[in-house]
């Protein structure tokens, strides 16, 4: 099986190029990450991120045959031969498949992804009814791999102003949380022309999310909350 992999080392290469590697007798049930690790044994200069190798840490997001996905949960049998591998699009490349995710994290931090205004401190834990807890399903599971935001054209055009699907999913996660006291401030913060409303329901985010989450729906829920607040 052939792998056409994007290579770029800004210290030594003038421009990015594609390098082809071939693995013989691959097990089709093998994950793409295992194949990349095998390739790395052949060519130690190949750079990519990985950690948990089971779709939990979100380190090995990459663009495989034009679709953003996690290499560790992508079976080789799902892919055609040759496999085209590129870094996640829209963010600067540090080396090979490793991208600089600072812009992504900046937007994540901008939504204040933590509970605010928890006063007074309760004696025991902060209780939620099962119904209140249910509202967080589909929001809290995000692993911040960046597959969604880097597949979003609105994020490509305005990565500094539009928060992107991942950060907006987190915004929704804290807006919906019954224990958070800053719901109004959170909604006010999002009410400008760029942060939330550059989303044009393109839904690439939904298509690529390796955890099967739905950022578009979360964005719709934020819009609903905004209207409810106004009324």
């Amino acid at each position, binding site marked *: 099986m052939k792998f056409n992999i994007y290579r770029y080392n800004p210290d030594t290469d003038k421009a990015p190029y594609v390098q082809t590697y071939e693995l013989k007798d691959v097990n089709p049930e093998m994950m793409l990450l295992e194949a990349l690790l095998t390739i790395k044994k052949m060519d130690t200069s190949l750079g990519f991120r990985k950690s948990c190798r089971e779709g939990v840490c979100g380190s090995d997001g990459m663009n495989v045959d034009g679709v953003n996905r996690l290499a560790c949960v992508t079976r080789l049998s799902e892919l055609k031969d040759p496999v085209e591998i590129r870094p996640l699009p829209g963010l600067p490349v540090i080396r090979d498949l490793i991208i600089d995710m600072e812009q992504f994290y900046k937007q994540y931090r901008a939504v204040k992804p933590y509970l605010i205004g928890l006063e007074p401190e309760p004696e025991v834990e902060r209780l939620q009814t099962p119904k209140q807890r249910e509202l967080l399903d589909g929001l809290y599971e995000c692993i911040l791999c960046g597959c969604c935001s880097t597949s979003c054209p609105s994020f490509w055009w305005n990565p500094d102003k539009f928060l992107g699907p991942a950060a907006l999913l987190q915004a929704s996660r804290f807006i919906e949380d019954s224990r958070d006291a800053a719901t109004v401030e959170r909604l006010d913060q999002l009410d400008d*022309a760029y942060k939330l*409303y*550059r989303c044009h329901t393109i839904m690439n985010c939904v298509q690529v999310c390796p955890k099967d989450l739905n950022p578009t729906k979360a964005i719709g829920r934020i819009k609903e909350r905004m*209207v409810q607040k106004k009324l």
Partner: protein
Amino acid sequence: MSGFSGMQAWLIQRFTAIYIAIVTVILAMIIWLEKPTNFQQWSALFSDPWMQTALSIFIVTLLFHAWIGLRDIILDYIHPIWIKMLVMTGIVLMLVASGFWFLRALLLV
């Protein structure tokens, strides 16, 4: 700089869309039923006060709807602030002028 908050623009775009859709369908039905063939018939159709009111509101909603749609494209793709302002000003002038042109046509029938 865009005139509306994010939510206002989003809501206006949706509500104007509903009005535009309804009036367009009704207008098409009226023209299809009345089948005006000469200027007098067209003129009579559009000088009806109900029609004039509905169409006056229609043009205002249409212009707002067009403004928000075009503004979205500008916000997405045009980044240098001066070019953005220039294009936005040009579009506003064009839309306002079209609005006056339409209202004048409506008053003259």
